[in-house]
């Protein structure tokens, strides 16, 4: 092994070097950790925020109410309906004698209504509801956490779909160019001139609004901006000597596109990635705000913002949602920035 020049990189694979470059951006690195922790915690929201206990030991038998629905009669109650664990009578039954209960951190799920609150809804922060309740008496903290999870998952799915379609069409257009490119480009222009918001409103009234419908509708329109950039990169790249060298080597079209053109065309994809993710979160939030988004019971940041607008004096609604939104978007943008630097092989 020689030891001159850039020898400290000698043993590192390209992936490891990218990771080093990512870590060199402190802000992005810290943001990734923060976001990672928050996101992983939110994935386990059912364990942390739930109105049902995690484990109940009733008469030396173990029950897992947060996973399985048990009727009240299981615990010696009167009704065949599901046990209401916040009810004082049920509480007494499952804690009497040797019975014990492990409760989640916060005793509210996203749609648990706090009937025991003495304050009118929306209620300001109390020891029961740490960030208060919304206008239906649901815990804002729980709704924020579930809403954050849904927003992020939604954004990831929408971005992944949009990027996949955008890269695919852009790559095909740019690489094969000519007539195929011409026809596809015209189709894209026609498609892009359709009024997206109108279509959303129309579809929202025809179909039952759901998160899946939103993903499908939004990703049908979201890929076009990216496809233009990828197409341009492929058009430029296909005439480069390294592509001709790859052809002379006998590589197939698919292999040339995958191994040679794609890695060199990712600059616009990576550059726009953080903005696409935050854009998706914003899209969902604004559609929910307008009431065109997810169905009413679903926890959503946009719906909370709309409530904040309706109840302008209930500062805990709008302020907390605002902080969650801004925080998420900022972390994502910082991570995206670091990712962009990490992908730049020219940097040390």
């Amino acid at each position, binding site marked *: 092994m020689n030891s001159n*020049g850039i020898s400290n990189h000698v043993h590192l694979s390209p992936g490891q070097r990218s990771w080093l470059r990512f870590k060199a951006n402190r802000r992005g690195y810290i943001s990734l950790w923060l976001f990672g922790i928050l996101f992983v915690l939110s994935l386990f929201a059912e364990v942390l925020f739930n109105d049902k206990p995690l484990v109940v030991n009733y008469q030396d038998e173990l029950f897992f109410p947060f996973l399985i629905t048990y009727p009240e009669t299981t615990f010696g109650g009167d009704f065949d309906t599901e046990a209401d664990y916040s009810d004082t009578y049920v509480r007494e039954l499952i804690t009497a004698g040797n019975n014990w209960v492990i409760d989640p951190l916060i005793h509210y799920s996203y749609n648990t209504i706090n009937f025991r609150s003495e304050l009118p809804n929306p209620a300001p922060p109390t020891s029961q509801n740490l960030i208060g309740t919304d206008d239906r008496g649901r815990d804002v903290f729980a709704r924020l956490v579930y809403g954050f999870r849904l927003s992020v998952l939604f954004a990831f799915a929408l971005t992944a779909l949009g990027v996949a379609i955008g890269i695919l069409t852009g790559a095909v257009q740019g690489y094969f160019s000519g007539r195929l490119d011409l026809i596809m480009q015209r189709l894209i222009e026609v498609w892009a001139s359709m009024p997206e918001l109108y279509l959303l409103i129309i579809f929202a009234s025809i179909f039952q609004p759901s998160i899946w419908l939103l993903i499908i509708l939004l990703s049908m329109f979201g890929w076009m901006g990216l496809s233009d950039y990828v197409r341009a990169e492929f058009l430029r790249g296909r005439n480069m000597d390294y592509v001709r060298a790859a052809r*002379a080597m006998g590589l197939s079209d698919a292999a040339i596109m995958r*191994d*040679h053109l794609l890695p*060199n065309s990712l600059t616009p994809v990576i550059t726009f990635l953080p903005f696409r993710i935050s854009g998706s979160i914003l899209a969902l939030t604004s559609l929910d705000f307008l009431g065109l988004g997810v169905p009413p019971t679903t926890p959503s940041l946009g719906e909370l913002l709309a409530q904040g607008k309706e109840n302008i004096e209930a500062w805990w609604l709008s302020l907390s949602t605002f902080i969650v939104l801004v925080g998420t978007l900022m972390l994502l943008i910082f991570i995206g920035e670091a990712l962009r630097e990490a992908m730049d*092989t*020219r940097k040390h």
Partner: protein
Amino acid sequence: MSDKLIQVENLKVTFKTQGGDIEAVRGVSFDINKSENVAIVGESGSGKSVTALSLLKLHDERQVDYPDGRIIYNKQDLMLASEADMRQVRGKDISMIFQEPMTSLNPVYPVGVQIEESLKLHKKMDKLTARNIAIEALNRVGIREPQQKIDSFPHMLSGGQRQRAMIAMALACDPVLLIADEPTTALDVTVQQQILDLLKDLQKETGMSVLLITHDLNLVRRFADRVCVMHEGEIVEQAVSSELFKHPRHEYTQYLLDSEPESRIAEIEPGINTVIEAENIRVYFPVRKGFFKRKVDEVKAVDDIDVELKQGETLGIVGESGSGKTTLGMALLRMQDSTGRIRFRDHMISDYREQQMRPLRRFIQIVFQDPFSSLSPRMTVEQIVGEGLKLHYPELNKAQRYDRIVTTLEEVGLDEGTLWRYPHEFSGGQRQRIAVARTVILEPDVILLDEPTSALDVSVQKQVLSLLSELQVKHKLSYLFISHDLRVIRAMSHRVIVMRDGKIVESGAVEDVLENPQQEYTRELARATIYY
């Protein structure tokens, strides 16, 4: 009165970068007399262009520092002059022409407007006088029909005409010093000579001085009165031109003079197999016009050419830009649609479809001119060199592949430590070695070398050529060697084809064609390239 026009004393230039200061020029002193031609010669990175730009202080002040030095012009130290004073000097007293005339002329203005601009600025002329002077200037630099050409946009002129227009622009205000930074590098050889002759004529006529910056020591042989040889930011030798070429004192100057490609023609045994045989190769590009894209004309890029290449032989294909030499090479590799018959060993590859060609591709490889664009910037050396192995030798496992890659890299003079590095971490010569390794690892029969040394410094050029000829002997390779440089062709080829406008002008054994050319065009080429 001294006849010193400009004196440069102990000039130092540093570039400010994040990684610390880089000394580009370390204490350079020289002077230029009135009506004198001085040349600064050096390889890329020697600081010659930085020195030239410093005379006019054209560097971005945020990036460049001048820690020391004086530039005395007209009893004034330009180092201390204000930006406003500098503007009076630039373009009026000292003007400059650059390497690439396409990018140094503004594409959205006609050339006339760009020539008039400095006249209006420095001589306060009105539009009509300026235009007349501009026409005269174009006439003076040898542009035919200057009345019409003055309204042409840069893209409508040929490379030589553009450089002439640049010179007209630089000379419009009758400068006392013209700085020419690689004025001929981007031009064809025959045009290069014309431009240098023009500069020399104009210099005699106007009595200005010329500072010529170039990497080509031989170019200045006939041109310069005095030569400064630069190496790593210092002038290592400074002498009267005739003296320098006769008795180079510094070892670096000797090294540069020795870097002239010497004959490395590989010995081949006579009467061996033909590898590639092609007949009546034609590549016509249709010229389409109008709404329905009707074919109105054809550009005959390659017109009825026969090629034969034997095993272990080098066939030189020489011609100026636009002569169709690269197109011919691409057609022979079936990378460009063509008509005619091409046979590779027992395969009539002109009838093969792309699918059928693919398994054969490994036997016919390419090395390109520009080592910066021929290697994918996102792949490591291991990936670049190993890619073909994965495809054509799927039976090798990871360890075997790794061994082959390391062996091949050693063969081209690179060590194992380079495996994880990316192309941008290498110099031009090293990149070209990687490109060669990528082809050799596939054990090809034929390598198409498309100007493999044109983008390299002369000394590196020599190394790459000797590597190529070593590999040729070792692996019995056949080379199709495309170049505009007769010196390189003469050093490497057994036989040569001279091309012009898609046709063969002359062909035969290299010594016959180049030493004793039968055609006027070949003679002209030979005269322009080999100045002795």
